[in-house]
């Protein structure tokens, strides 16, 4: 029986593994490749608790590894921070269009991209080289806050359908557009509009420290399909797929807070001594049905003599000897 061994970052394509490892590699290929297989827009919806930039970078790394050139419209992080973690091969295929340093041209030094964010976005629609290209928008939320929703949707549509422009004799490779969207920042209208433009929509969530991606595929002329995948992203932005949600049994003791015994520093006593324990065990409860009590109940002892009612009428009591039920005709 072949011995299973661990997957290393980028080598999963060339392993000759055991069943489980090959299945894992196939699933990883499935998730990233299937997201990148369709041209068009892939929408990554993240939240404050489950951030999506790492998955975006994992997809970018996958595209670059497949030989594509990647253009990034960076609005939220600096170029240095974005390129961090990529190796030199990936970095050489990245072109970072910097909208972070001076997006609104406040510095007036002329370094900012001319025509602002919309111009930069439209410039990406005009491509010179016909090779396969991936465009990453980090983030769509920033663009949505600064551009009207309709303009953004129209530009995105033009961006992802560049292969169908008329008058172009040479067949052009499909464009992959990856957009990062922070769900909480927008109302249902704009999010719905962007979602309807997307060929694949990945919603990030998770449980107990484990991230999950709920993927909705909208393949043309097919029914939309759902898939949920649990994963974690390694430091080099390769994906590590998990089989399922984390088991409840995995309870990591938090090293930060040692378990505290609350009975140590009390002003009252919670413990029993030996004599007290014995006294407690030998106590008979008042309503416990024991054999003595049973005998007492069965014997009709002189109990009537002991139970008498003594009544002292108050000053305002109305003592009427008549029976109030006399006039009832029952």
């Amino acid at each position, binding site marked *: 029986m072949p011995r299973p061994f661990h997957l290393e970052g980028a080598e999963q394509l060339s392993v000759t593994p055991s069943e489980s490892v090959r299945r894992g590699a196939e699933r990883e290929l499935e998730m990233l490749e299937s997201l990148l297989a369709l041209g068009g827009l892939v929408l990554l919806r993240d939240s*404050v608790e489950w951030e999506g930039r790492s998955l975006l970078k994992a997809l970018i790394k996958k595209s670059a590894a497949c030989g594509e050139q990647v253009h990034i419209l960076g609005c939220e992080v600096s170029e240095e921070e974005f390129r961090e973690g990529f190796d030199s091969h990936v970095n050489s295929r990245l072109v970072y269009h910097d909208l972070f340093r001076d997006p609104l041209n406040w510095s007036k030094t002329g370094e900012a991209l001319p025509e602002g964010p919309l111009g930069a976005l439209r410039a990406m629609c005009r491509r010179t080289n016909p090779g396969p290209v991936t465009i990453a928008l980090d983030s769509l939320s920033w663009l949505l806050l600064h551009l009207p929703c309709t303009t953004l949707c129209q530009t995105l549509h033009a961006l992802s359908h560049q292969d169908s422009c008329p008058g172009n004799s040479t067949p052009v490779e499909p464009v992959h557009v990856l957009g990062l969207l922070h769900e909480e920042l927008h109302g249902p209208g704009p999010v719905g509009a962007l979602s309807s433009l997307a060929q694949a929509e990945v919603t990030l969530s998770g449980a107990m420290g484990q991230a999950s991606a709920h993927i909705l595929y909208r393949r043309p002329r097919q029914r939309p399909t759902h898939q949920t995948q649990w994963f974690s992203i390694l430091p080099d932005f390769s994906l590590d797929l998990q089989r399922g949600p984390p088991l409840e049994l995995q309870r990591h003791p938090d090293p930060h807070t040692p378990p505290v015994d609350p009975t140590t520093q009390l002003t009252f006593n919670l413990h029993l001594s030996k004599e007290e324990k014995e006294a407690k065990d030998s106590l008979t409860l008042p309503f416990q049905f024991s054999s003595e009590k049973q005998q007492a109940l069965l014997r009709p002892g002189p109990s009537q003599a002991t139970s008498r009612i003594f009544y002292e009428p108050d000053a305002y009591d109305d003592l009427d000897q008549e029976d109030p039920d006399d006039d009832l005709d029952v």
Partner: protein
Amino acid sequence: MFPELNHLLNTTPDRAEQGKLTLLCDAKTDGSFLVHHFLSFYLKANCKVCFVALIQSFSHYNIVGQKLGVSLTTARERGQLVFLEGLKSSVDVFFRSQEEPHPLQFLREANTGNLQPLFEFVREALKPGDNAEAAWRCPVLLVDDLSVLLSLGVGAVAVLDFIHYCRATVCCELKGNIVTLVHDSGDAEDEENDVLLNGLSHQSHLILRAEGLATGFCRDVHGQLRILWRRPSQLTAQRDRSLTYQYKIQDKSVSFFAKGMSPAVL
């Protein structure tokens, strides 16, 4: 600064991290004690601090600062602290000629455009000095608070842009830190505030959230503090860490304890 909070955040004035955006938010309680903590923390760490104080007067922060061991007057005199007192200088906006830009220029405009004059003020205050003056550790921008800008008519996107530019300049270019306070409206439906809070949360490296107790006011436990570390260093690939503690504010310090472990309750 509160030593117990330093211990929870695993930091000391000597080992303060750089290039970070810290977001303070409070819900159903007053989170200003966190502002006082970070103000005294960075002054003790020998950083150059630009404090945009829109809520209280200078003397208020000075009095609290003295309880925590820093003198704002001294810091301002020797150039370590640049203090924009919003309450006082907002009146100056109306008595100045319009050509001179004022950091709070937006108060004068009918349709509030952007906070660029305020950003220019911050950049001017924190830019490294030319002469060989005492080298401060790193520049720090402290804003108390951003929600009041929404009340003054500035849009949420304009405030986000202001913080964006501050981040680009202070955090990335000058390798400094930003600490800012935003109130969480909670049940009150304030969409602009929610956009501001969520937008900042996505950009932050550290979020400290002070919440009132769900059961109401208590004499011995004043609230709950949730600490969320985001965007960890890529090399460690550590999952975002989150901790929750309850606290009690005393005269000169704040004591923290695990949930349900208040000394008054045990």
